C-alpha cells in the first residue's frame, strides 16, 4: 500500500503516517479511497498502526512481520496442520517404558509409513523444535499485534470528534439520510434521548446539531485482554521447564510399604489398595460378567522427613503430614505435591512367614519363628533346634551353568539355606534348603534337594495367619506443577477478554444536520442487525418509521 505523504487533513488535524481515515473528522485520506463508493474499512478506526513508518529499517521489518494479522493467521494454520500430523500415529511420549524404542516400534507396527513418520521426527511432534518455534512465533505475534493496535485505538477512541465528515458518514455500513422539517437542535436532542434509553452514552457538540452515541466501548479491549491471558498462559507453560517446577515420576508401593519420593522431602505409605467391581444387577445385559470396575483406590499416608533426610546411612525421621484415599478423580494434594492413581498390580508379595520347625521322626513341632524376606535375622533358636541362615535368594533359579542364582530382588520365589543343629543331626549342623512358598517347594523339589535330612526335620507354615503378605501393589503418579496457578490465571484472563469481546459489541452512531439535511452513519464491530435495530428504534421515536434492513449499505448497493 502506498502511504500518503501529506497526512494533514482539511479539518486541520495532523495524522500519523499510515492513517487511513482522519483521526479527527473521519475523512478518507487516500485519494483513491475518497473517490470510491465502497463502505469504509473501519478496522481500528482507520488509525495508523504503531509500526507503520515511511522508511522502515531492519528492526521495523521484523516488527512489521509479526504485526501483520495475515501472518498471524498463517502461523495458526501451519500450527494446526502440524498438530494434525502428530495425531496420525501415537506419540512416543505415550509409552513410559524404559525399554520402548521408537526407532523399532514405528517401523514394526506401521511399516513404511511408520518408518517415515519416525524419520521425520513426527513421533515427537509436540516437543519438536519446529512446533515449539511455531508456538513462540504465535506468542510473539500476539504481543506485537496487540501493542501495535491497542495504543492507537485507545488514542482514537478517547478523543473522538463528534461532527464527522460527510464522506465518513455516508460510507458507513449502516447509513441514513433525509430532510427534516423539525428544529435541528430539538430533533438531535430527541434522538439522543431515545438512544440513551437503549444504554448509549450520548455526546452533542456545541451547535447542538451533531451527535455521537456510543455503547459498550469496553468490548473493544476484549481481544487484547484475551491476548494478554494467552501470553500469560504460554509463559506459564514455558515456566514448567524451570528445574523443579514440573515433577513427573512414578512410585510403586506394595500394601504396607513406605517409600521415599525422590527429589522431594516426602515419603508415602500405602495402607492398602482396593478394587471394586460392579455387581451384575448394576450392569446392563451385554456388560454382565464383564468385570467392569466400579472403583479403585489407595489409602495413603504422606510423611515429611524432618531429620536425616539426605543421609541414607541413618534412618530418616518421618512426620505424618497428610492422609488421603486416592481415587482416579481425587488425587492426594498436599501443598504443591499431588499423588494420582495411575495403575495397580494384583500380584501378592510375600513379606514374612512364621513357620514351625518339625521333628519328622517324633512329630513334635516347635516355634513358630519369624522369618522376614528382607534382611532376615541370621540366627534362630527354635525349641531344641538352632538355625543359622547361611544364604538366601529372593527369586530363586538355576542358571545355565547349574548354579543357583536370583533373578531379581523381589521375593517372587524366595529360598533360604539354613545350617540346622539339633536332636538327631550332625554336630556341625546340616544344610537345609527352605522354600516358603508351596509352589516353589514343588517346582524346585525341596525334599530331593534336602535328601535324607527331609526325613528328620521339616519347616512348615501352619495356616495363612502365619503368612504376612501384601495383596497388591499400587502405582502412583507423582506430580508437582508450580506453574499451574499462573496457567489458570492466564486462562481466566483470556476467557474474560473473550467474553467481553464477543458477547458485547461496540456500537457508535454519528449524525449531523446541515440545513435540515440529516446524515447518519453507524458502526459496530459485530452484530449489525442489533445496531440497525437501535437506529430504527430511535428514528421511530422521532417519527421516522422504516425497515431496519433498509439502513444497510453493506456494499451491495454500490
Amino acid at each position, binding site marked *: 500500500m502506498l502511504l500518503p505523504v501529506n497526512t494533514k487533513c482539511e479539518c486541520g488535524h495532523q495524522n500519523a503516517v499510515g492513517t487511513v481515515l482522519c483521526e479527527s473528522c473521519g475523512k478518507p485520506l487516500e485519494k483513491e479511497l475518497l473517490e470510491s463508493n465502497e463502505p469504509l474499512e473501519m478496522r481500528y478506526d482507520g488509525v495508523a498502526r504503531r509500526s507503520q513508518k515511511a522508511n522502515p529499517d531492519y528492526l521495523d521489518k521484523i516488527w512489521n512481520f509479526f504485526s501483520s494479522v495475515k501472518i498471524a493467521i498463517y502461523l495458526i494454520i501451519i500450527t494446526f496442520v502440524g498438530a494434525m500430523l502428530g495425531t496420525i500415529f501415537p506419540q512416543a511420549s505415550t509409552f513410559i517404558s524404559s525399554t520402548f524404542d521408537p526407532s523399532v516400534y514405528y517401523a514394526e507396527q506401521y511399516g513404511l509409513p511408520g518408518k517415515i513418520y519416525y524419520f521425520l521426527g513426527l513421533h515427537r511432534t509436540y516437543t519438536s523444535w519446529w512446533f515449539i518455534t511455531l508456538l513462540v512465533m504465535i506468542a510473539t505475534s500476539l504481543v506485537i499485534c496487540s501493542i501495535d493496535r491497542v495504543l492507537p485505538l485507545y488514542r482514537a477512541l478517547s478523543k473522538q470528534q463528534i461532527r464527522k465528515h460527510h464522506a465518513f458518514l455516508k460510507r458507513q455500513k449502516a447509513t441514513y439520510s433525509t430532510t427534516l422539517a423539525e428544529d435541528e437542535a430539538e430533533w438531535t436532542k430527541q434522538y439522543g434521548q431515545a438512544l440513551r434509553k437503549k444504554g448509549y452514552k450520548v455526546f452533542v457538540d456545541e451547535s447542538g446539531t451533531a451527535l455521537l452515541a456510543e455503547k459498550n466501548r469496553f468490548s473493544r479491549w476484549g481481544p487484547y485482554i484475551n491476548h494478554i491471558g494467552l501470553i500469560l498462559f504460554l509463559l506459564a507453560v514455558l515456566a514448567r521447564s524451570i528445574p523443579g517446577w514440573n515433577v513427573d515420576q512414578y512410585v510403586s508401593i506394595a500394601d504396607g510399604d513406605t517409600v521415599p519420593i525422590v527429589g522431594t522431602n516426602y515419603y508415602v505409605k500405602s495402607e492398602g489398595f482396593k478394587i471394586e467391581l460392579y455387581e451384575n444387577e448394576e450392569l446392563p445385559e451385554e456388560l454382565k460378567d464383564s468385570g467392569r470396575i466400579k472403583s479403585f483406590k489407595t489409602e495413603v499416608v504422606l510423611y515429611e522427613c524432618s531429620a536425616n533426610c539426605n543421609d541414607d546411612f541413618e534412618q530418616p525421621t518421618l512426620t505424618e503430614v497428610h492422609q488421603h484415599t486416592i481415587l482416579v478423580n481425587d488425587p492426594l494434594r498436599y501443598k504443591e505435591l499431588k499423588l494420582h492413581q495411575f495403575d495397580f498390580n494384583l500380584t501378592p508379595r510375600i513379606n514374612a512367614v512364621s513357620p514351625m520347625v518339625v521333628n519328622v521322626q517324633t512329630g513334635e513341632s516347635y516355634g513358630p519363628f519369624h522369618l522376614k524376606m528382607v534382611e532376615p535375622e541370621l540366627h534362630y533358636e527354635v525349641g531344641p533346634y538352632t538355625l543359622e541362615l547361611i544364604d538366601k535368594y529372593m527369586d530363586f533359579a538355576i542358571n545355565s551353568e547349574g548354579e543357583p542364582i536370583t533373578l531379581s530382588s523381589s521375593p517372587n520365589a524366595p529360598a533360604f539355606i539354613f545350617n540346622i543343629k539339633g536332636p538327631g543331626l550332625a554336630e556341625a549342623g546340616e544344610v537345609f534348603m527352605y522354600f516358603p512358598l508351596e509352589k516353589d517347594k514343588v517346582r524346585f523339589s525341596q525334599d530331593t534337594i534336602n535328601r535324607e535330612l527331609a526325613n528328620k526335620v521339616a519347616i512348615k507354615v501352619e495356616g495363612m495367619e502365619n503368612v504376612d503378605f501384601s495383596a497388591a501393589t499400587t502405582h502412583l*503418579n507423582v506430580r508437582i506443577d508450580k506453574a499451574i496457578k499462573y496457567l489458570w490465571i492466564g486462562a481466566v484472563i483470556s476467557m474474560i477478554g473473550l467474553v467481553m469481546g464477543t458477547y458485547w459489541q461496540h456500537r457508535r452512531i454519528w449524525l449531523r444536520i446541515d440545513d435540515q439535511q440529516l446524515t447518519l452513519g453507524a458502526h459496530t464491530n459485530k452484530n449489525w442487525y442489533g445496531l440497525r435495530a437501535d437506529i430504527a428504534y430511535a428514528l421511530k421515536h422521532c417519527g421516522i418509521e422504516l425497515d431496519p434492513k433498509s439502513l444497510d449499505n453493506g456494499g451491495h448497493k454500490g
Partner: protein
Amino acid sequence: MNWLEFSSSSLGVAFFLYVFATIFYMVAIAGKKWGKKDPKLHEARWGKIAFITSTLGLVAHLLFFFTRWIGSGQIPTSNMYEFITLLGMTIMIAYTIIYFIYKKLLLGMFALPLAIIVIAYASVFPSDVQPLVPALQSHWLKIHVTTAALGEAFFAVGFAAALMYLLRTIDFKDKTKNGKRAQRWLEFTLISILVVIGFIIAAFGFKGAGYTASFQQENASVSQLGEISTTTETVEYTMPPIFKPYNSEAIEVTPFLGMTDGLFETPSWFNGVNSGRKLNTVVWSIIVGLLLYGIIRVIIRKPLGAAIHPALEGIDPDDLDEISYRAIVIGFPIFTLGGLIFAMIWAEEAWGRFWGWDPKEVWALITWLYYSAYLHFRLSRGWQGKPSAWLAVIGFVIVLFTLVGVNLLIAGMHSYAGVE
C-alpha cells in the same frame, strides 16, 4: 412406567416433533407460492406453528435428558448414545437462542434436519445405561461435556446458516471454472450429508434384518510398559463384511449377496478399537449414501444444490452470513471454556497433567485454532460472504472429526467414550 422408559419415549416424541416442525417450516416457505393468501401472513403463521412445534420438541428432549439422569443416577453424557443425543439437544438449544436473536424462520429448515440426523445417528448406538468407570466418576463429566457440546452446537448452527448461504448464493447457471468448482464442492457437501443418512439407513436396515457375522481376530499390542502381547478376540459385525478385521478368520457369516467371508482385509494401520468393523461401516455408509443420491438425482434430474436453490430465493444472503458468523462468535467462548479450559482442569485432576497431547485433546485444540483463524479472517476485507461460509462448513467437518472421527480412527485416552 419407570424413569428410564419415560425418558426413552420422550426422546421418541422429541424426534417426531422435530420432524413435524421441519415439515411446517417447509410449508411456511414453499406455501408462499400457493397463492391464495397473503404470502407474508402465511409465512408468519406457519413459521410460528413450526417454531412452537420445535420448542415443544426441545422440551420433550430436555425431559428425556433429565428423566434419564434421575433414572440412572448419573448424567447421561458418558457413552456415544448419550453424548450424541446431548449434541442434538444442544443444537436445538443453540438454534432456539439464535432464533430469539434474529427471528429468522428459515434457519429452522436447516438446523432442525441437522438435529434430526444427529438424533437418528445416536440411536444406532446401544442405549443402555452403563455405570461409570472410575475415570468418569467426576463432576467435571457434567460440566466439561455439556459446555463443550453447547459450543460445538453453535458451530453446527453456524454451519447450517453457512450451508444455506452457499445454497442461496451459488449461481447454478454459472459456467465459468470457478462457478463450476463451487457447484461441485457444494454438491460434495450435500452428498456427505447423505452419506451420514446412508449410515443410519444401513445400520437400521441390517439390524432390522437381523444380520450378524463374527470373526476371530488376533491382535498384537504393545502395552504402556512396552511389553508385546498377543490376544485373540471375537469381533461381531452387524453389516456384511466388505472389510473384515485385520488378521482374522471368519467364524460365522450370514450370507449376503453370496458373501460368506470378508471381501477385503482392513489395513493394519487403522488402529482404533475395532477398526475393521468401523471401516466396514464407513464403506457401507458411503455405498448407501451414494445409492440414495443416485435415486434422488434420477427423480429430480438436476444437481441437489440446484434443486434446493430456488426454495431459498426470498432470503437475504447478508442475514445468513451474519447469522453464521454470529453463531460461531457466540459458540467460540463456550467451546473455549468447555472444550479446552474445563477439559484441562479435569485432566489436571484425573491424570495429573492439564495437557497430554492425547489425540482428542489435540483435535479440540485444532478446532479451537481453526475457529480463531476464522475469527481473524473475518477482520480482513474480502473474507465475508462466500469464503467465510466455506470456512464455516469446513470448520464443522473438523468438529465432527474431533467428536466422532478421532474415536473412529485414532486410539487414545478418550477411547472409552465410545461403545463401538
